[in-house]
């Protein structure tokens, strides 16, 4: 039943006739792995290029077209001990890569210009204090202009574009005063140079750009790194489907290559990768990832099935549908669209600061000019002083105040297992006061587990687990996992819809439905004591056992929720599952605010009611039915096991089996916001000192250079504090 996967969908044809495949590799963590992989792949015939990227955890392989089977490459990596998954590089990232390189080029140009202009400026400053002649000074100023003007025209593009975009859409962002400051500084400097003046501000303009570009590049770099990890995770769990190529022939293809109308085979224990209609077969479907409902529903010819659901016990043939989607998914998509549209246009802290800042600064400059004219100074002096005010207030520190903290905080979150997908999520997470959890897959682990393993004799459990290895049923898999079984029993065969059996020493072993094993009475007792659990029975001659399997709470859920409540957060459970299952979990966790049987629309309604009451809501969920609620909440998190649709609706993804990352995210972001506010105040204090100096007409280029770099360094050093206290004890502060 193992067919080779068809990876041709992911192979990229290069212009020179070669082909390239990008793979995300699991477990490539050290330099030795990197060399082993490159060596192993390079030894394959006709492979012309094999390059591992340790930072992003990917490998690029190129070969002469048609000479290499992509499956052989994956097979080779598997032989080396690495799991590799194809990664569709065309779809994403090329834009991002382009942008990163452009920013780095801008930074290079700006840094080059800053160094050379500074060299000339220092000569002028020292010359002004000693014996420079006006001709020499003019020559140096013209030389500075020659370097600074083209450099700013090139390196300033990211700011100019963003400022123009903001102005066109009627907004003000930090790039507007930056652009204005830089352009005015250059214009004034050229004008002053023409009039053989003592001062020119070419150095201020390029230095400002260099500092800001460095901050912007760091910010982008951090985000790119986070996104690369998230994209790898997506590739690792990228689903494949078994497609009927002809009537009787099957092939495993990536879901991206499946078209509506195709017929796919879904075996027991497999997750259904597509939406469609059952054409043939009979089975039970676990829809918990889609609806949150843990009870199974039956499927037969004509039943609509959804991507993300789990086929429990029968083989199904599913006709892929796209146009005639199921009512549930239609509903979710419609709600999601509306929620995304209505998502309150959150005004970033930086944007709010810019809105206050820009008018104040521009007004101050104008008042300075008018004031000097009224006091009887020349128009020339008044204008020069007004522009000096604009240059010295040009928001270098302000421009760095927030990105610098974002870099540090997203790095800390990354180490804490939280991958951010949007930059302003940090600020929104920091303002949360109410947390709404989904139950299935969020508070509980997504895979079912055996409960009360200690109640059963170890040798019975071990034998049952070996028998369970023969089945792909999720409940059987839970038993196999619980005992850590690795050696399957010989000659085990599966009875569809009943269970698995095998002969050991002439005696029959059975694992499956209680009725099939003749243990209905005992199974009834176990089921009564634990209403959420699914029961599975085992008989070996006279030895019998009944196992209860259910989704277990995340190991640290109780502690984390208690910690959150102690910190003053209001905690709620909002689940699509039935009442008995939800209230049992709520009792264990000590949560009193509970809603069960909620449809996607109910979930949105609850979130909106909370928000209408003035609460800032964090929604944590993993199901497809949670996606609209995730988008409707102020900010949202989902575990990495969540469905694709759900992950893309949430602001961040957390990794691992523990709930701690949720608490870490809240702790880190609160600290980050505090540091952001401090940084903004630092910038205000800097302006409070520097602006009177500029208004008085003492803001020479030397003063501007010192003030600007001083405040930038101060802000960056302060930003580093956002990292402190995020280690093992994130609640200590």
């Amino acid at each position, binding site marked *: 039943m193992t067919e080779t996967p068809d990876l041709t969908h992911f192979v990229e044809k*290069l212009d020179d006739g070669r082909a390239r495949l990008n793979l995300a590799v699991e477990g490539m963590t050290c*330099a030795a792995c*990197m*060399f082993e992989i490159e060596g192993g792949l*390079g030894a394959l015939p006709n492979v012309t290029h094999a390059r591992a990227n*340790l930072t992003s955890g990917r490998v*690029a392989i190129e070969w002469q077209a048609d000479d290499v089977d992509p499956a052989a490459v994956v097979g080779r990596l598997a032989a080396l001990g690495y799991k590799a998954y194809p990664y569709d590089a065309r779809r994403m990232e090329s834009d991002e890569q382009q942008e990163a390189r452009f920013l*780095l080029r801008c930074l*290079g140009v700006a840094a*080059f210009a800053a160094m050379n202009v500074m060299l000339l400026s220092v000569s002028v400053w020292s010359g002004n204090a000693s014996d420079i002649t006006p001709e020499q000074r003019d020559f140096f100023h013209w030389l500075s202009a020659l370097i600074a003007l083209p450099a700013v025209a090139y390196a300033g593009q990211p700011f100019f574009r963003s400022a123009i975009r903001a102005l066109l859409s009627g907004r003000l962002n930090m790039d507007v005063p930056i652009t204005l400051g830089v352009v005015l500084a250059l214009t004034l400097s050229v004008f002053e140079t023409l009039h053989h003046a003592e001062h020119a501000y070419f150095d201020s303009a390029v230095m400002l750009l260099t500092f800001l570009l460095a901050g912007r590049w760091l910010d982008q770099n951090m985000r790119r790194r986070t996104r690369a990890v998230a994209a790898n995770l997506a590739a690792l769990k990228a689903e494949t489907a078994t497609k009927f190529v002809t009537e009787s022939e099957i092939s495993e293809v990536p879901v991206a290559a499946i078209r509506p109308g195709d017929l796919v085979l879904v075996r027991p224990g497999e997750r259904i990768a597509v939406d469609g209609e059952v054409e043939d077969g009979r089975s039970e479907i676990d829809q918990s990832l889609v609806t949150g409902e843990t009870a199974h529903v039956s499927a037969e010819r004509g039943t609509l099935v959804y991507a993300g659901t789990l086929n429990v016990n029968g083989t199904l043939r599913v006709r892929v549908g796209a146009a005639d989607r199921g009512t549930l998914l239609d509903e979710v998509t419609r709600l999601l669209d509306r929620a995304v549209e209505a998502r309150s246009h959150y005004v970033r802290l930086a944007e709010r600061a810019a809105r206050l800042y820009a008018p104040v600064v521009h007004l101050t400059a104008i008042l300075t000019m008018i004031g000097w004219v009224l006091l009887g100074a020349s128009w020339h002096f008044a204008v020069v002083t007004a522009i000096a005010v604009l240059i010295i207030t040009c928001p270098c520190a302000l421009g760095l105040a927030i990105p610098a903290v974002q870099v540090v905080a997203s790095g800390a979150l990354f180490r804490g297992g939280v991958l951010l997908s949007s930059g302003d999520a940090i600020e929104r997470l920091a303002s949360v006061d109410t947390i709404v959890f989904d139950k299935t897959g969020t508070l509980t682990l997504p895979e079912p587990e055996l409960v009360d393993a200690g109640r059963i004799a170890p040798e019975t459990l071990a034998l049952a687990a070996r028998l369970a290895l023969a089945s792909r049923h999720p409940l059987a898999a839970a038993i196999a996992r619980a005992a850590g079984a690795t050696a399957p029993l010989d000659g085990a065969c599966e009875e569809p819809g009943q269970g698995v059996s095998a002969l050991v020493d002439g005696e029959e072993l059975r694992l499956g439905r209680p009725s099939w094993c003749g243990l209905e009475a005992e199974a009834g007792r176990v089921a009564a004591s634990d209403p959420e659990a699914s029961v599975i029975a085992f008989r070996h001659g006279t030895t019998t056992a009944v196992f209860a399997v259910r989704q277990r709470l995340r190991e640290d859920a109780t502690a984390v929720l208690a910690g959150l409540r102690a910190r003053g957060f209001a905690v709620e459970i909002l689940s699509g599952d039935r009442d008995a299952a939800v209230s049992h979990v709520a009792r264990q966790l000590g949560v009193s605010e509970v809603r069960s049987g909620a449809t996607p629309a109910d979930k949105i309604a609850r979130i909106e009611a909370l928000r209408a009451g003035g609460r800032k809501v964090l929604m944590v969920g993993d199901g497809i039915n949670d996606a609209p609620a995730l988008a409707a909440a102020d900010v949202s998190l989902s575990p990495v096991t969540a469905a694709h649709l759900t992950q893309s609706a949430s602001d961040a993804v957390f990794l691992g089996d523990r709930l701690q990352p949720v608490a870490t995210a809240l702790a880190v972001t609160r600290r980050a916001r505090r540091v952001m506010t401090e940084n903004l105040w630092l910038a205000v204090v800097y302006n409070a000192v520097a602006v009177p100096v500029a208004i008085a007409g003492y803001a020479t280029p030397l003063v501007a250079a010192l003030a600007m770099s001083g405040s930038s360094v101060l802000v960056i050093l302060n930003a580093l504090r956002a990292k402190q206290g995020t280690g093992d004890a994130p609640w200590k502060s």
Partner: protein
Amino acid sequence: MEVLIYLVPLALSLGLLGLGAFMWSLKTGQYDDLDGAAWRAILDDDQIPPAAGQKKAPTSSPAP
């Protein structure tokens, strides 16, 4: 102060040389994998695996 006539062009061309070197390193993808590059530097020459050895020359197709 005639010394400026050749000192200034010299300073500028040195600066441009540095900028050119930076642009070249950027173009050949030397900033794409900073973690990996740190290790490649200390790899013993006699242990270079075939594929890694081939990759000494800059290529037009950097790793993703």
